[in-house]
């Protein structure tokens, strides 16, 4: 942790009055030592941050062209698509950016789940991440309403109606959310206001997330603490360049979808203007909500269905205290690995269930998968810590590499020249 140094007079002048450069150096520069064994799975945090920036920039520009009124919203979006200079590009970036944001964040979350990044002393870091996920979901949901297509309208109606399941106050809360007797102009206006506000709240929580991260630094694929400076390398240039490379790969995939399949992840019904008198035959949420939607529908009771859906995220808040194993990384937990794969299969299955009508085999799969989801977090994880025999941990981050054996990480790695 070398102190920040510079020869520039201007930087010295500013630094003396407001130490912003040393702050940045300490946050994402050479003054921030990170474990030297971070894999590409550790790219997705900064990637999520970049996606957030892309969404805010395109969103502000779109807001300059959009009209939040039930009579004009749909047409104003069509105008963006047809007439506004590069409007199609802005909208396709923003629209697909939401999907890519969730792809990146879901990978980021499952990385944390596998490597035990939620365990002490990073519980608060993890919980702030769950808060970000919730904010993202709210923001994405409200943004999807703005084009005022059929899926916008009916998605808004169904999701706001979830709150009517609350006993006694339900109806009052829903009327309050709508500002009327149904999803209508007041609803569209407030969703627009909140959709513009919430990304900035996300930025604020991201800052807290990074603050909490920097208290103990990144976890790593081995899940053991760095024993000293020999186990770490400076964030800049090592991880700035690795993150930038990852960003390039990400942008290639992102651009491929934007330019060649911009509507692949959307739903054609949303190009039909909202009609409050006719529900589309088959309502589905955006793909990133499908597992949660499946949980909602798997439970025949309205209130319990809503509780289960919110519970599926609430359980993540207490995850650090549900997983009783002291070993962080899944690499050294043979049984946990198995159940982790099952959890991924389970969540993907829930996604397919959410995309299909709740009938026949899908209903059965949905119920089994919902049951398994909660079983995994509430029963399996607490028991695993007791009954599982973890494999021996390496004594340091460097050991598996330098000895070329003992742990699976060393299988292909040769001693680095400089690391």
């Amino acid at each position, binding site marked *: 942790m070398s102190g920040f140094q510079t020869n520039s007079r201007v930087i010295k002048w500013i630094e003396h009055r407001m130490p912003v450069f040393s702050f940045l150096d300490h946050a994402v520069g050479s003054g921030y030592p990170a474990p030297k064994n971070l894999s590409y799975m550790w790219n997705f945090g900064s990637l999520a941050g970049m996606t957030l920036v892309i969404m805010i920039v395109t969103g502000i520009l779109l807001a300059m062209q959009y009209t939040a009124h039930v009579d004009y919203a749909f047409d104003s979006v069509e105008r963006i698509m047809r007439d506004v200079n590069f409007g199609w590009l802005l909208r396709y970036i923003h629209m697909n950016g939401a999907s890519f944001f969730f792809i990146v964040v879901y990978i980021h979350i499952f990385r944390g789940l596998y490597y035990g990044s939620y365990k002490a002393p990073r519980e608060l870091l993890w919980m702030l991440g769950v808060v970000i996920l919730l904010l993202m979901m709210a923001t994405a949901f409200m943004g999807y309403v703005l084009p005022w297509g059929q899926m916008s309208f*009916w998605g808004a*109606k*169904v999701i*706001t*109606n*979830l709150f*009517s399941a609350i006993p006694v106050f339900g109806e009052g809360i829903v*009327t*309050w*959310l*709508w*500002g*009327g*007797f*149904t999803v*209508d102009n*007041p609803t569209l206006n*407030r969703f627009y206001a909140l959709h513009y506000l919430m990304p900035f709240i996300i930025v604020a929580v991201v800052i807290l997330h990074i603050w909490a991260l920097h208290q103990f630094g990144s976890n790593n694929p081995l899940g053991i603490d760095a024993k000293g400076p020999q186990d770490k390398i400076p964030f800049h240039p090592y991880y700035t360049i690795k993150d930038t490379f990852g960003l390039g790969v990400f942008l290639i995939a992102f651009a491929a979808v934007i330019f060649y399949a911009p509507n692949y992840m959307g739903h054609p019904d949303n190009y039909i203007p909202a009609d*409050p*008198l*006719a*529900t*589309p*035959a*088959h*309502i589905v949420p955006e793909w990133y909500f499908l597992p949660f939607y499946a949980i909602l*529908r798997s439970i*025949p*009771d*309205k209130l319990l*269905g809503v509780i289960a859906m919110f519970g599926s995220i609430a359980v993540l808040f207490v995850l650090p205290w549900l997983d009783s194993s002291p070993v962080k990384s899944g690499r050294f937990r043979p049984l946990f690995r198995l159940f982790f794969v099952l959890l991924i299969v389970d969540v993907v299955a829930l996604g397919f269930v959410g995309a299909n*009508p*709740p*009938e026949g085999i899908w209903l059965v799969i949905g119920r089994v998968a919902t049951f398994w989801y909660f079983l995994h977090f509430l029963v399996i994880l607490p028991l695993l810590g007791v009954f599982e025999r973890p494999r021996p941990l390496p004594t340091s981050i460097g050991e598996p590499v330098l000895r070329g054996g003992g742990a699976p990480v060393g299988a292909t790695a040769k001693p680095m020249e400089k690391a």
Partner: protein
Amino acid sequence: MADIATSAPADSGETRRDFLYLAATGMGVVGAACVAWPLIDTMNPSAEVLALASTEVDLAPIAEGQRVTVTWRGNPVFIDHRTQQQIQQAEAVDVEALPDPQPDSARVQKPEWLIVIGVCTHLGCVPLGQKAGQDRGDFGGWFCPCHGSHYDTSGRVRRGPAPLNLPVPPYTFADDTTVVIGEGEQAA
């Protein structure tokens, strides 16, 4: 508080301070709540929205067996000119066995005219069945495509996740062929 203050040791200023903290915080919370309410209430529908009048419907052109959708307060209202067979079907049901028990007679003013709000009580979709050829579900009434609730010819939920029957809006018959939705007694 006073007792504690007098029984406290010489430097009893601590206790007085505690009391002041509590009292000030308490007032602050009450004040914040008083300020918060108007802010929260702006999001509720205003009186002008609540007053959103009534919808007058001419029933004369609606033939027996025909269903018509009108808009009231932004929501679809189903008007069903029921046939004798549909009425009998609705009345013949064992009321106690229903998820939301209501006799057909409590849901209509004139048996041939069933008037219900066409919003599924599960999550707010508009059930199918108003147009010819649409799926009317297994009970001859309406079928909600979103999550599969079936309603009968009285608009009562018979199967599926919906907890309640389709609600009956307040309405009155101005004359034999005119109904005013939004005025009059709220049906049971």
